């Protein structure tokens, strides 16, 4: 009777087998972890594709250019107005010196209107581009792909606990330079890979609504510039400074360079207790 040959493993093949088992085990563990993670992560919402980020960057640059162009003219207007007041020209409009000052002021004012007229179309164009890109994204990602319940869960970020750091209040940045505002938006969005969907949804909404308002404001301003230019050209013939002129300059300054008085904020409520409460089986 012939015995079947005993199958023994050489030390080399045994080591190979162990290596194979180790690698297979490791691969299994990794695939389990990946599967778990992909289950845990809710589908990412795409609110800021590169096109939107680029639009924001461009808007910031255009705003910066407009501010730079206007800064010098507005500075000159301030000086001329100061001189006009210090020379006690109010009520002495027929004085030849005052008439000269008044004409200079009017000419600088026209220069400001002309710079705005020249730069605003670019500004309007880039703001509208950003607004439209965001509008499309919001409609598709939050409007059509989500229910009110999933939107709420996205905003809560998967847990009903308070966020570790309080998020800044974004609306109402009137006390800030236009370019600074867009620069901040750009920075917030550009570093959005580290942000959760929760804050991205709020950020996208905030920027979109701001763009809506800015867009309307620019359109209205462009209409007004035509009218104001005509009126000032007529005023040049009479050499008078209208209160409207000063009002418009003031308005432009507050839009472009911010208003100090609006930066004051009332403190928020005190932070809540850290104690973590009971979780009911009835919770959604």
């Amino acid at each position: 009777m012939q015995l079947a040959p005993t199958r023994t493993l050489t030390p080399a093949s045994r080591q190979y087998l162990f290596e194979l088992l180790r690698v297979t085990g490791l691969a299994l563990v990794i695939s389990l972890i990946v599967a778990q993670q992909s289950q845990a992560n809710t589908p990412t919402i795409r609110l800021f594709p590169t096109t939107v980020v680029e639009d924001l960057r461009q808007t910031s640059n255009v705003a910066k250019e407009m501010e730079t162009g206007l800064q010098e003219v507005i500075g000159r207007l301030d000086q001329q107005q100061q001189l006009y007041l210090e020379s006690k020209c109010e009520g002495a409009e027929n004085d030849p010196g005052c008439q000269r000052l008044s004409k200079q002021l009017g000419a600088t004012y026209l220069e400001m209107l002309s710079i705005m007229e020249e730069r605003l179309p670019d500004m309007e164009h880039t703001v509208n581009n950003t607004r439209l890109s965001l509008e499309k994204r919001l409609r598709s990602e939050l409007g059509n792909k989500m229910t009110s319940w999933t939107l709420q869960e996205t905003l809560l970020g998967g847990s009903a606990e308070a966020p570790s750091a309080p998020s800044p209040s974004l609306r109402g940045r009137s006390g800030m330079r236009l370019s600074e505002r867009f620069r901040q938006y750009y920075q917030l969005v550009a570093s959005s890979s580290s942000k959760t969907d929760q804050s991205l949804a709020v950020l996208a909404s905030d920027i979109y609504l701001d763009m809506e308002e800015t867009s309307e404001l620019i359109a209205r301003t462009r209409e007004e510039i035509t009218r104001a230019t005509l009126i000032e050209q007529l005023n040049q013939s009479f050499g008078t400074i209208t209160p409207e002129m000063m009002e418009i300059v003031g308005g432009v300054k507050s839009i472009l360079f911010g208003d100090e008085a609006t930066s004051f904020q009332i403190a928020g409520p005190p932070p809540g207790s850290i104690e973590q409460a009971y979780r009911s089986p009835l919770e959604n």
Partner: protein
Amino acid sequence: MNRITKHRVILGIAILWAGALSSCASSPPPCAGPQTKNVDDAISHVQRSLNNGCAAHFDRFYDDLLTIAEGDPRPENKRRFSEFLVWAADEGILSQRQARDYYNRYFNVKFISMAGDYNNCSHTCPRRDRVMLNMERELSDKERGLLKISLDNTGYYRADELYREVELVLEATCTACIAGN
């Protein structure tokens, strides 16, 4: 003979009526709310009443319990209310969904007013004002449940923040939805 029988019947009815009236005067009115200030005792009282045919008064009892718990605020109140509602669902007084709604409306950060199965553009946006009004009312109930009854400041402030975020995001989303039509 017939006349005597009639008198006896009238007398019997009068005695029964007087008896019924006297028993009404001495016992508490049916389905009365809890009189104690102790939350556990109040819950026990309500459980007995609900089991004795007063299930139709659930809303009033729940409000009574919330009022009593406001007088003794503590984090454990969340568990007490949860257990009471689970009991009510087990006893068949509430459906599971009703029990969840009663709990979540007062003690959870999430808003049950934001429940919906259809997309926001077609369903939430056309009734955004109503949704926000319902959320505002629910936030006031959460103030009662989270802040005043359970001392869960963190939870309440998160709910308040969530309300403001939903308001902002819905305003933007609905404007975008309308622009796309």
